[in-house]
């Protein structure tokens, strides 16, 4: 299993803060493409954190990973 987390407008667009998915050996980039297709999202400017660390697009996901989708931030 992997856990997906959504924040800000993505949470509202997906309709969920958290989604559990079966693990398959794919990269961050492939997961983004999959979500863009399934949910009609645009994730081009969305950063991805794997287990609370920013990840490169090419990173291969591992079973148990928590993948967070981080829209452009606006704290401060």
């Amino acid at each position, binding site marked *: 299993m992997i856990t997906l987390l959504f924040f800000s407008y993505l949470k509202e667009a997906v309709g969920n803060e958290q989604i559990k998915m079966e693990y398959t050996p794919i990269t961050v980039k492939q997961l983004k493409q999959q979500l863009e297709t399934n949910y009609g999202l*645009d994730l081009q*400017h969305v950063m991805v954190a794997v287990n*609370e660390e920013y990840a490169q697009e090419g990173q291969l996901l591992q079973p148990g990973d928590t993948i967070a989708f*981080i*829209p452009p*931030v*606006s*704290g*401060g």
Partner: protein
Amino acid sequence: MSTSLFTITDKPISIEEVVQKVIRPEAGAVTTFIGTVREFTNGKRTLFLQYEAYVSMAEKILEQIGNEISERWPEAKVAITHRIGRLDISDIAVVIAVSTPHRKDAYEANQYAIERIKQIVPIWKKEHWEDGTEWVGNQLETKAYPTGKPEGEDLA
């Protein structure tokens, strides 16, 4: 209050408490940055803001910013508290306190901290206007997505 130097809280922030975390005998200068909720942005009135964070990661990234500052300004000590939840006009959203032996470093390191917060810390704010709501969509606070999603040229 949290005794941690880098904290996300849903309670009002005490400036004194954040400052006390960095005051020490070897430092003669403390700078703070206090971000408050502004009523008007580009002429539009804000009623209140809703801040949301990926709390556990946000605290880690705040700590990372602290480490970046220690590399650049080895004598600096930094504490940052960011509030989430509903904030009204003039409420304090963030307090950054930096102490250093010499004041120039305290200003520079403090400004570095707020710039980095606006770049990489997973915190988002939703503007509540008189005629709707908008997630503020980029780091420079100049864009908003009226539909709740990026659209138009931001999708290009």
